[in-house]
């Protein structure tokens, strides 16, 4: 069994940021509370439509991420629903305290779009890549953290964020690249509900973001050898779909986490914490391993940080050996 919303082929790649912008314009047309804020960050082609149609609800604050976030909290207090856009590292890195104090603590209805998260976009190098956002923000009380895996789920995540009352973090990958589309448009997307992309009995890959596509590839590759791998798209980092995770632990007995983020405190950390307390199983974490990224092409950096399908496959095969060892 697998999600009925999975595309038959993975032959289409789309830009998640474009999908987000599309949703944002549609939202702004029907709801005058939607405001789009930027920290000298490209609004994208569709974002420019937003600027033309509703110039008063389009704020560029310049290169000032701290002000970007607190200003948005002020807009939210005035009854608006601001979406802020900036490089993820500068949103989390420079405005962590503003996110915590002005947005999370006061539960302001601000949607913080962190763009260019992860390392899989080599162009601007380690100063602009971001690996620690999940660890940092997961510990902030009362934040909802979304990490969509493709353009379809990203568009739906944007709508869901707008409809959700309270602070939301939307974690997006590279704004300059297209990423494999895995879902059909009728995807049933709900905050806090992980999507079982593919059913399996021997192990479960819990992936988030654009690496869900690679996880799926690995599961498909392993099928002919008789290995049945479940794949969960953990598109909501917080609140975590604990029941889906525990069910995976109980039913498959081996978990592999996959993320374009640091395994320290990231999705890997979250899954390990949860299962250690509620259903201890073997866990292997594929992600960025306590290191910074590199300049290079997206493909080069992805390989250099060991995030490609062969590394995921190696982790699955390794954990299956562990599982067998433990059963002896």
């Amino acid at each position, binding site marked *: 069994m697998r999600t009925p919303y999975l595309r038959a082929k993975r032959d289409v790649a789309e830009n998640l940021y474009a999908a987000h912008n599309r949703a944002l314009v549609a939202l702004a047309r029907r709801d005058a*509370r939607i405001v789009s804020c930027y920290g000298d960050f490209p609004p994208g082609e569709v974002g420019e439509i937003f600027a033309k149609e509703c110039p008063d609800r389009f704020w560029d604050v310049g290169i*000032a991420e701290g002000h970007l976030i607190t200003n948005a909290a002020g807009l939210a207090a005035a009854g608006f629903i601001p979406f802020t856009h900036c490089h993820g590292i500068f949103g989390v890195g420079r405005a962590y305290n503003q996110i915590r104090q002005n947005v999370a603590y*006061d539960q302001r209805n601000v949607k913080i779009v962190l763009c260019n998260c992860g390392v899989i976009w080599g162009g601007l190098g380690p100063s602009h890549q971001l690996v620690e956002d999940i660890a940092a923000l997961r510990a902030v009380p009362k934040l909802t953290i979304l990490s969509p895996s493709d353009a379809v789920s990203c568009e739906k995540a944007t709508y869901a964020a707008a409809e959700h009352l309270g602070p939301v973090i939307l974690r997006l990958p590279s704004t300059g690249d297209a990423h494999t589309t895995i879902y059909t448009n009728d995807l049933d997307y709900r905050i806090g509900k992980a999507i079982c992309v593919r059913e399996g009995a021997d192990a479960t890959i819990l992936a988030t973001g654009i690496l869900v596509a690679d996880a799926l590839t690995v599961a498909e590759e392993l099928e002919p050898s008789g290995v049945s791998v479940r794949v969960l798209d953990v598109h909501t980092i917080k609140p975590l779909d604990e029941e889906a995770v525990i069910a995976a632990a109980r039913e498959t007995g081996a978990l592999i986490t996959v993320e374009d983020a640091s395994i320290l405190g990231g999705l890997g950390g979250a899954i390990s914490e949860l299962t250690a307390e509620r259903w201890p199983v073997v866990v292997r974490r594929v992600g960025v391993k306590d290191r910074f990224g590199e300049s290079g092409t997206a493909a080069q950096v992805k390989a250099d940080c060991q995030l490609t399908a062969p590394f995921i496959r190696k982790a699955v095969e390794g954990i299956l050996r562990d599982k067998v060892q433990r059963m002896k």
Partner: protein
Amino acid sequence: MGNDALVKDLEAKARKLRRESLSVMKEMGAGWLGGCFSEADVVTALLFYRMRHDSTKPGWPERDRLIVSKGHACEIVYTAIAEAGYVPKEELKTYSHTGARLQTHVNIRTPGIDYSGGSLGLGLSFAVGSAGGAYMHAVDANRTAPSRRYPAKYRVYCILGDGESNEGQVWEAAASASHHRLDNLTAILDHNRFQSTGPTAKKLDMLSFADKFRSFGWEVREIDGNDMRAVVEALDWAVTVRDKPQAIIAHTVKGKGVPSFENTNCHFMKITDEVVRIGQEALKD
């Protein structure tokens, strides 16, 4: 001027609030006496004269907003909003207690408080967002292309500390307010010349705040911020300014009102029965 009676009345109110806030500080056994007393006249003139607000409707969308960016100086603010009727005076006794609405930095749990402070240097950015929102008018659903400029639904007042203005974000906000021509925003800088651990000029000399705000495109006035008549006149001036945010540099005295505390290290001081007695004696009507 016909303001005499008003000024006298506000002066008496400010004295009363200072006096009562001592008991609030006593709840914790320590308090931000210095900053509370320096800003007391501005807080009084705002809440009991200039601001449009209604304590029976704390969430009224068109109320003027008070953003106390120097959020530690909260005891005088809590005392004032209790006086205004937002919270029962009895509740002042719960200040600083676990679970209380009156937390140890201004906190939106408390009706009448629009901004949770404590992390310095952020309030002006919040005020810019709030003031911009007052011009957007778009809160009614299903309206597109709302009209921007006229009129603003409400005004926003932001009380800044001179110490907290070491923080760079104050100046990001200052640039932004002027860029967006937010004339419904007034910042009042409580220039009491002391911060947590000593004189501001020794910690980080910011030189002229008036020059700074002016260079960022603000209209600026410098006043004696403990002279009620000057405070009232400056607030009246601010609402007449068009197309620019206004900064009132309020030169104040840390611990104003109790001579033995004035200009001493009274930023966060131990509040004993003796301190309360000395203070209340000095602040008698």
